[in-house]
């Protein structure tokens, strides 16, 4: 007998049959399908952090994947869980995606235990990005505190790859003690780039430390750029970017020229699960990158 109500099969919709591409946000997609990816390499950065090179297995999907500095992916260990991780690498590089991950919960612990070659899943990219185009022709301050260097590394690489697009470039990085310094093997490389200034400060120096001591705001004392015509990207814990942004503003930088990246719990990345809601805003859709003026207007953001 023919049923009186005809079944509707969503998988027959034209849009959902197109190749999966999370950049086509308005299209109907298999939104929980994850790209199978291989951990092609793991680089130990500190006791707690490793840099993962993730390569999407399918060459066509790998080629289609594109992101902008500041965006994140949902990284999945099937059977264990899924976590939002900001992309730490270059967006001009097509072969693999770089993710800097701290060992802290169930999923990240599994990832740290994984061996190169293991298959994980990634969905994305999701979220907003740093407006690198808008910053063209201006000086840029790239400021990180602690693990904030992970999301900041992507715009740092972008700026170094497109150095001629920008005026002065200052990278300021502050962390707790020298053992927590991330990407220490790259500092020399960044410093050698013409017109890139890198300053690093630690709060608790060890006996070998020869650099400045204190918190990252101290590094701003030595910076002389036309503040009202400069952009800043500030990544780090809320207390850090609040201090830094307040100080930058006092030095003359408008609040809507400072960009920060917020961290929240996320279970979807697509403006559905609500876990990342701040006031009226989804961090996964309207963020994670916000200008500081917007952040000041969000309730409970910092």
């Amino acid at each position, binding site marked *: *007998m*023919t*049923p*009186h*109500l*005809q*079944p*509707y*099969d*969503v*998988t027959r919709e034209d849009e*959902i049959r197109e190749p999966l591409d999370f950049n086509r*946000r*308005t*299209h*109907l*997609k*298999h*939104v*929980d*399908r*994850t790209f*199978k990816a291989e951990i092609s390499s793991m680089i130990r950065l500190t006791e707690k952090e490793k840099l993962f090179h993730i390569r999407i297995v399918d060459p066509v999907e790998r080629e289609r994947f594109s992101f902008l500095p500041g965006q994140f992916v949902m990284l*999945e*260990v*099937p*059977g*264990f*869980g*899924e*976590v939002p991780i900001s992309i730490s690498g270059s967006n001009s590089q097509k072969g693999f995606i770089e993710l800097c991950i*701290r060992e*802290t*919960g169930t999923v*990240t612990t599994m990832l740290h235990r994984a061996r190169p*070659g*293991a*298959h994980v*899943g990634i969905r994305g990219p999701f979220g907003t990005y740093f407006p690198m185009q808008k910053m063209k022709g201006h000086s840029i301050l790239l400021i990180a505190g602690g693990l904030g260097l992970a999301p900041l590394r992507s715009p740092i690489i972008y700026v170094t790859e497109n150095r001629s697009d920008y005026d002065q470039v200052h990278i300021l990085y502050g962390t707790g003690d020298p053992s927590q310094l991330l990407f220490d093997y790259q500092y020399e490389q960044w410093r050698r780039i013409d017109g890139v200034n890198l300053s690093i400060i630690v709060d608790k120096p060890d006996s070998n430390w020869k650099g400045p001591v204190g918190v990252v705001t101290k590094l701003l004392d030595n910076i002389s750029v036309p503040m009202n015509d400069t952009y800043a990207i500030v990544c780090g814990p809320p207390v850090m970017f609040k201090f830094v942004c307040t100080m930058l503003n006092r030095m003359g930088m408008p609040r809507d020229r400072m960009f920060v990246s917020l*961290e*929240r*719990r996320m*279970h*979807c990345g*697509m*403006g*559905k*699960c*609500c*876990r990342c*809601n*701040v*006031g*009226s*805003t989804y961090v996964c*859709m309207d963020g994670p990158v916000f200008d500081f003026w917007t952040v000041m207007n969000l*309730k*409970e953001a910092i």
Partner: protein
Amino acid sequence: MLFKTLGKNEFRALVDIILESNEVIGPTQVDTDKDGKPIHKYQPVKTFEELDLKYENTGFSAKTYFLPYKENLSTWRFSEDDWTQEITYHLHPRAIIGLHACDINALLKLDKVMAREFFPSPYYLSRRRNTLIVGIDHEPCEGGFCRSLGTDTVNRGFDLFLTDLGDRYFVAIDSDRGYATLHKVAVRDVTEQDTTEYLEARGKIASGFGPDLEVKQLPNLLDIEFESDVWTKWGAKCLSCGSCSMVCPTCYCYGVSEFASMDFSEGAKVRQLYSCNLVDFAQVAGGHNFRPKRETRLKYRYYHQHRGFVEAYDEPKCVGCGRCGRACLAGISPPDIIGDLLAKEERA
């Protein structure tokens, strides 16, 4: 919109026809409360008799048929050192009979989040489009404040909508599927007498509502009163149990967790509805909790209902069904909290 009238016997015949080959869900009495009042629930029925279309309200909304409390998002099959992912969507057409206007308005709000603009959800769409919705008019229910939110009437989001005219129903038709289904039985064209009686019935319903709650200024008021002692007062009562979100027809927030079988042959990615009142809702890796206090979580729920959702979709998320107030173990209800906020403004 097209209108027809349908005799009650014909309506019964129509439900029987659908029951022959499809699942039918509707309000059924499942128990009585301590005062002897019937308790209703939307659940699958086998016969027309199980439906009680004169029900006042239900403890739970019908959202579980669109956003199940627990839903498998994908299944993993593990082999040696690899895995495959399987995803399936709901494929069975069914009918929900007897939804009130508030609950259909709730679906329209859920549509905005789950099925429009960004990342439309194939899981939700499959369930929504496979569900024939037959709504029904009813007298204002106790504790409901739907009229304050403009959700006491509805003119889309359903297939058929019934208004009881005694021996027959006045039927609004909002889809081709609804039209085709309706015409499986004998329907009549609307007469002048039908229209007169329909308008009388609507007028009687409209006059039964209590005074309106002023919600228009809430988006602004919630910003201004963010640090208000109203939140301390109600936050101290709140048990952070999350019952309000579970019974809410529009609360859609969820958590995703994954499982692997003991022998690691398979696993699952499961979505489970959550509540912003639960303690770990906004806790991030490393242990920091952005909303550690009960009052901040309670406030957040109201903020989302009447401020955040308005900003995103130009309408409040709340439909005024009153379920959260009835379900609350601590006796917290939206009209009380909103009333306190409004009173504070008036005193000032």
